[in-house]
């Protein structure tokens, strides 16, 4: 049968995507939908690109050659994700140069977890294991995104993230089975990262008040994602003898996790450019963008 043509009517479009329908670049898209897509996907691209910087700091200091290679491979994966994602944004009408300019000027955002320092090798393990675990929960939900070109590249991204989680777990397991000092390094990193991890999926705004859900860019609400993270990973943390730094954390009989209210003021401040490492990392990105201009010029010539 012929593919049903999507009518140029916002209400009909909304019903179509809410019924599980997917659209392509060449379809008619309501202006608001296109704007929301660009904002969401661009932030994802920014996060992949900025997300390599905390780990990059540890490539030269990695404890073994194997770890150094694995970390380099992870960085390559994340930059590759950024390239694919910015391509999707370009097809929606915003050039990559503009995305990068907006990132550096602070006009667009990137995920909260990439604004923090990586103080020890313990941080590298916690990031690769738990930050990537939190991210893969969001990204798996994007496999059903109403915008099909984005959903398609998410398959590759999720597949690669699963390596990262395993690499992170391996780093953590090496440390928790090592000396007491190594164990302590993991616990100390977890203590610092728990707050940002709990903020990661955003405030518990009901799904039907979230415009990204309304347009079915996301297929689940923020709290649903956080609950899934807790359900999957708290048992894995505890079984290693680590402590989750939240005395209120518990799973109720109905299966819902209770926890101390995350610091939403901190989340807001961090993602609007006031994180402990925001300025340094943006300056680093700006410097490299300028320094490597000749490479882009040479390739385009």
């Amino acid at each position, binding site marked *: *049968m*012929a*593919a049903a043509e999507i009518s140029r009517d916002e209400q009909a479009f909304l019903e179509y995507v809410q019924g599980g329908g997917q659209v392509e670049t*060449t379809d008619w898209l309501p202006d608001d939908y296109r704007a929301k897509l660009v904002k969401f996907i661009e932030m994802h691209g920014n996060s992949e690109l900025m997300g390599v910087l905390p780990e990059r700091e540890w490539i030269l200091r990695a404890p073994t050659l194997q770890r150094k290679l694995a970390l380099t491979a992870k960085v390559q994966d994340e930059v*590759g994700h950024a*390239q*694919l994602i910015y*391509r*999707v944004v*370009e*097809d929606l009408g915003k050039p990559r140069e503009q995305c990068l300019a907006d990132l550096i000027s602070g006009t667009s955002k990137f995920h909260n977890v990439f604004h923090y320092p990586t103080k020890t090798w313990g941080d590298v393990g916690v990031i690769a294991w738990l930050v990537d675990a939190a991210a893969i929960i969001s990204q798996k939900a994007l496999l059903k995104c109403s915008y099909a*070109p984005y959903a*398609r*590249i998410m*398959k*590759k991204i999720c*597949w690669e993230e699963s390596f990262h989680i395993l690499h992170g777990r391996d780093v953590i397991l090496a440390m928790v089975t090592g000396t007491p000092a190594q164990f302590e390094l993991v616990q100390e990193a977890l203590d610092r990262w728990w707050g940002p991890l709990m903020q990661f999926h955003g405030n518990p705004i009901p799904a039907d008040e979230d415009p990204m859900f309304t347009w079915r860019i996301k297929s689940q609400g923020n709290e649903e994602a956080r609950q899934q993270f807790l359900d999957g990973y708290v048992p894995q943390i505890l079984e290693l003898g680590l402590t989750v730094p939240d005395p209120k954390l518990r799973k109720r009989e109905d299966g819902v996790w209770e926890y101390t209210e995350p610091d939403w003021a901190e989340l807001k401040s961090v993602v609007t450019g006031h994180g402990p490492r925001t300025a340094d990392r943006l300056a680093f990105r700006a410097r490299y963008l300028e320094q490597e201009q000749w490479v882009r010029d040479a*390739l*385009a*010539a």
Partner: protein
Amino acid sequence: MIWEIFRRDRAGQPFEHAGSIEAPDAEFADAWAREQYGRRGESIALWLVPRDAVHVVSDWADEFDLKYRRVDGYSIKARLKEARERASVKSG
């Protein structure tokens, strides 16, 4: 220049669209696509197609009733019932 990338997972599987890359020529596109879509051995082959070379067909005229070409063009339920009834009357 935009290149659409199609990848084949395993022998016998169809090529599936996997994303696109921007590269000034085929040589660059080749190097980049290998890196993006093959560095873990996840593809046995890739097709790199310049986006401009893709001839798209997506408008389907339907001015004739072509139902007879499709399974939903045939409703046999009622006639089958009747045929079975007649058959049972004859044999009974």
